[in-house]
C-alpha cells in the first residue's frame, strides 16, 4: 500500500473520462487471465469441473508456481475471438463456475497454499440454466467461504469487475486493481437503463458510479492501484504483467508472514469496515 507512487504519474489520474476507462477495461486486446497466468506463473496445471454438473470454461483455475511457490490461481476468462467467446460465454460464469472456484479454494486451504484470483467479467450470466442451478446461491456461498478461508487470498481486478459476478471470486485479504480496470455494483449501461431510462446515458452513469481504480483506492475499497504501461495493458501486455507480478509478490510475502487466525480476523474486520453511514443522535 506504500507503493502508491503510481498515482503520482499525471497520466494515471488525468486525461481519460471514466467511460473511456470502461472501454479500455473491455478492450478486446487486453490481457486476460490466462495471459497473466502464462506470463507470471509456471507449471500451471488446470483443474476442471465442480464435481456436480459440468466444467464452466468462463472460470479457469488450477495449481501454479509463482516465483518458486505453489499457489491456486482462479480467474474469469474471456475469449479473444467469437469462437472462443462462445466457448467462454464471454467470461460470464454459470453457478458451476463459482462452485469450481469454491472447490479449488477449499483445496488451497487444505494444503495451506495461497489463492490468487483474477477478476474479469461483465457479470455472472443471467440465463435460465444459471437461475435453475442457483446463481445467487453459488455466489453467496463463495462470499461466505472466502470470508472464512484459512489461507491468504489476493484478488486482482484486471479488466471488468462486474458486480456480484466479480465479487464471487474477490473477497480477499488484498484487492489489487489495474489502472484501467473497472469495478462496479452495476454496469454503467445497466445503471443508465434503470436510473436514466436510457442505455445512452452510460457515460453519465459511469461518472456517477465512481468505478475506476483511482476512485476505488480513494474510497478505500481496493488496496493498491497497479499502473499499466503507457497506452494501457493491451499495448504492452508483458509490461502490465511485470507490474502486476511485482505487486503480487510483495503482497504474498506480507500475507505469508501473518498467522492464519489473525489473517482471517483481519479479513473480516476489513469487510466489516466497508460502507459509509451516519449516526444521528437518538432522541
Amino acid at each position: 500500500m506504500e507503493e502508491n507512487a503510481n498515482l503520482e504519474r499525471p497520466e494515471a489520474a488525468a486525461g481519460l473520462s471514466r467511460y473511456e476507462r470502461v472501454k479500455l477495461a473491455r478492450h478486446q486486446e487486453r490481457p486476460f487471465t490466462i495471459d497473466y497466468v502464462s506470463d507470471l506463473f509456471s507449471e500451471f496445471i488446470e483443474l476442471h469441473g465442480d464435481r456436480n454438473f459440468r466444467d464452466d470454461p468462463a472460470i479457469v483455475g488450477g495449481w501454479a508456481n509463482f516465483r518458486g511457490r505453489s499457489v491456486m490461481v482462479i480467474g474469469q476468462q474471456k475469449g479473444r475471438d467469437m469462437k472462443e467467446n462462445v466457448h467462454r460465454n464471454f467470461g460470464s460464469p454459470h453457478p458451476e463456475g463459482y462452485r469450481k472456484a469454491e472447490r479449488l479454494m477449499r483445496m488451497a486451504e487444505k494444503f495451506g497454499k495461497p489463492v490468487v484470483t483474477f477478476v474479469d467479467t461483465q457479470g455472472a450470466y443471467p440465463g435460465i440454466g444459471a437461475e435453475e442451478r442457483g446463481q445467487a446461491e453459488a455466489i453467496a456461498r463463495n462470499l461466505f467461504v472466502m470470508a472464512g478461508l484459512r489461507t491468504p487470498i489476493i484478488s486482482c481486478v484486471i479488466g471488468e469487475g462486474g458486480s456480484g459476478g466479480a465479487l464471487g471470486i474477490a473477497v480477499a485479504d488484498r484487492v489489487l486493481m489495474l489502472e484501467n480496470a473497472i469495478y462496479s455494483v452495476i454496469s454503467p449501461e445497466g445503471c443508465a437503463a434503470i436510473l436514466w431510462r436510457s442505455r445512452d446515458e452510460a457515460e453519465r452513469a459511469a461518472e456517477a458510479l465512481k468505478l475506476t481504480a483511482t476512485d476505488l483506492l480513494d474510497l478505500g475499497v481496493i488496496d493498491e492501484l497497479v499502473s499499466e504501461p503507457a497506452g494501457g495493458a493491451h499495448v504492452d501486455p508483458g509490461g502490465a504483467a511485470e507490474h502486476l507480478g511485482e505487486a503480487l509478490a510483495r503482497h504474498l510475502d506480507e500475507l505469508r508472514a501473518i498467522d492464519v487466525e489473525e489473517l482471517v480476523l483481519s479479513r473480516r474486520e476489513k469487510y466489516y469496515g466497508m460502507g459509509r453511514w451516519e449516526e444521528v443522535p437518538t432522541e
Partner: protein
Amino acid sequence: MTWFKKPKQKLVSQKRELAADVWVKCDGCGEILYERRLGENAHVCPECGHHFRIPAGEYIALLLDDGFLEEFDTNLRSADPLGFVDSKPYTERVDAAIEKMGPADAIRTGRGRLDDRDVYLGAMDFGFIGGSMGSVVGEKIRRLADRATEEGSPLILISASGGARMQEGIFSLMQMAKTAAALERLAEDGNPYISILTHPTTGGVTASYAMLGDVILSEPEALIGFAGPRVIKETIRQDLPDGFQRAEFLLAHGMVDRIVPRVEMKPVLSTLLHHMC
C-alpha cells in the same frame, strides 16, 4: 356475461376513489377485498391465497410474541458517499423514503421473543427504495448477526429487495461481502440462521445473506432470483418458462427448503428453532 361485468367494474372504480383504504383488489384473483378483513388474515387473500406485500412492522407483529421488537440501530442513516445524482439527488430519495416509511432504512432489526425463545430478527421494507441494500442495511445486519453470535441466539432475516442500492455504488456491492462475513462468524459458533424470502428477493440480496440460511423458507409465489426476469429475457432473447423464478420453481430446483404460507410462518419457525437450538 358482458352486461353484468361492465357495471361491476365501474362500481369498483367508484368505490376505490371514494375510500381507497377500505377496499383493495387482489392482484392474484382480481377479487375485491375488504381491507380490514384482509388485515386480519395477514394480508393473504382469503379467496386465492395471494400474499400481499406487507411492511416490516407487520411481519414483526406476526412473528414475535406480543408483536414486540426491541429495535436496534435506529439512528443509522444513509450517507451519500459518491455524491450520487441521477434524475434527483440520492439524498432527496433517502429523505423521501424516510418521510414515507420512517427512519429505519430498508430493514428493521432487533431482538424479540418467538414462542418464549430469544431471537434476533431483521425484516426488510420493500417500500424503502425498493428494499435496496446500501451501507445502512449491511451495517444493521452485520451488527444484528454479531449480537446473535455474542448471545448465542438464532438469527432470522426476512428479505424483500430489488438488490444492491446503485446510488451507493461499490459500497453497496461490498455489503454482500460484509453480511456474508458476519454470517460466517455466526455459523462458526453454531448459531442457527433462518432466511425467509418474500416477494421479491433479487440481485445482491439473494446473492448474499438471503441464500445463506441453514434453512431457507419462502412465501408462496415469491419472485426469487439473481438476475431480474427482464434482464434475462433481453439477454437470451427467449420467453421465460411459466413460473420461472417463483418460489415453487426454486423449491423444485432444490434452492429453498420449504414454501410456507405467511399465516403458518410463526409455528414453522418455532418448530424449526426447537430442533436447531
